């Protein structure tokens, strides 16, 4: 029996095969997946915002922000037995869900994607797949046996990343 583990906004989870990490309804958030193929261990971080600068560090939830969530998932994966040098990243999400109007124009999705990429680059983690931007919601399943991400979008066929 596969155990489906949902990862909510601002959360991160790490799991091994035969568990499966899932996220439903990704909007402007970015899902960072890290995977160690040899140890079949993977993690999702559900990043909501680009930058925690200026927020009281005692109150901040590090897994909400790209600048803190990326290093955190990286360190926690290593604690759970993943090899840091084997970790590869895939990133998904960062959509702008509502078309901009005169009074509301947000780039939050794009900012999230850029911030996650910057944080990955600082840790020298390679990005091997990406499905970001646009204006559609996404859902994801992480197969921890193969490292494949199954991506679904409303009204479209499921794709693999």
């Amino acid at each position, binding site marked *: 029996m596969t155990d489906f583990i949902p990862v*909510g*906004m*601002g*959360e991160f989870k790490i799991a091994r095969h035969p568990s499966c990490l899932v996220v*439903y*309804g*990704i*909007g*402007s*958030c970015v899902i960072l997946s890290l995977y160690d193929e040899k140890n079949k261990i993977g993690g999702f971080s559900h990043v*909501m*915002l680009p930058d925690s600068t200026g*927020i*009281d560090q005692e*109150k*901040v*939830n590090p897994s*909400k922000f790209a600048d803190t969530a990326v290093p955190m998932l990286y360190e926690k994966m290593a604690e759970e037995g993943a090899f840091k040098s084997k970790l590869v990243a895939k990133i998904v999400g960062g*959509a*702008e*869900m*509502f*078309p*901009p*109007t*005169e*009074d*509301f124009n*947000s780039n*939050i*999705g794009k900012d999230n994607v850029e911030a996650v990429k910057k944080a990955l680059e600082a840790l020298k983690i390679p990005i091997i797949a990406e499905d970001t931007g646009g*204006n*559609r*919601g*996404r*859902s994801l399943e992480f197969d921890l046996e193969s490292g494949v991400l199954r991506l679904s979008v*409303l*009204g479209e066929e499921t794709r693999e990343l």
Partner: protein
Amino acid sequence: MEDITNLTRTQLDALREIGNIGSGNAASALAQFLNRKIDMAVPSAKILDFKDIADLIGGPAQSVMGIFLKVMGEISGRFLLLIPEKTSLKLLHTLIPGCELDSPLNMGEMENSCMKEVGNILAGAFLNALSVITQTPMLNSLPSMAFDLSGSLINYVVADMVAVSDKVLMIETSFIEEEEDLKIHIFLLPDPDSLQKLLKSIGVA
């Protein structure tokens, strides 16, 4: 900035009453527009963890029509209508003569502007009532619309409101048509720095 987790029972009750009056006005506008009797669920004013918002409408993976407007004025915030797929089709079939749309994914220009107008009318009626009670003019922005997963739409609307706290203050209500299950969820999220003004204007600061 007011810490919303410190709101008292009385303040929440007063906010719920605001929701009651606003959505009452919106319900009669909708009833007039559709020429049908519309019932209203008892509104709630809640302090919610952002992770739990989607549960109010059946989880993050529902296909819904979202209409999003900004509330502008001295008291500002965000106004979100979430309309389940079935209801949005029913609204379109009722409002556009000869409309045979089978999925909101195939909406054209006509259907788009029709749904936006529904949002405009409901938000306008809701905020008009609020302006009167608070004696503070509140206007809505032009509506923006998307048909997608409930979780994705909510995520986008609340993300930058929950940088510091995990909690949002939300006035929520739904409409149900008398016989058939026409369902519309209304969410009003006051901006955190407008909350004090809002409370003051209704005498519970």
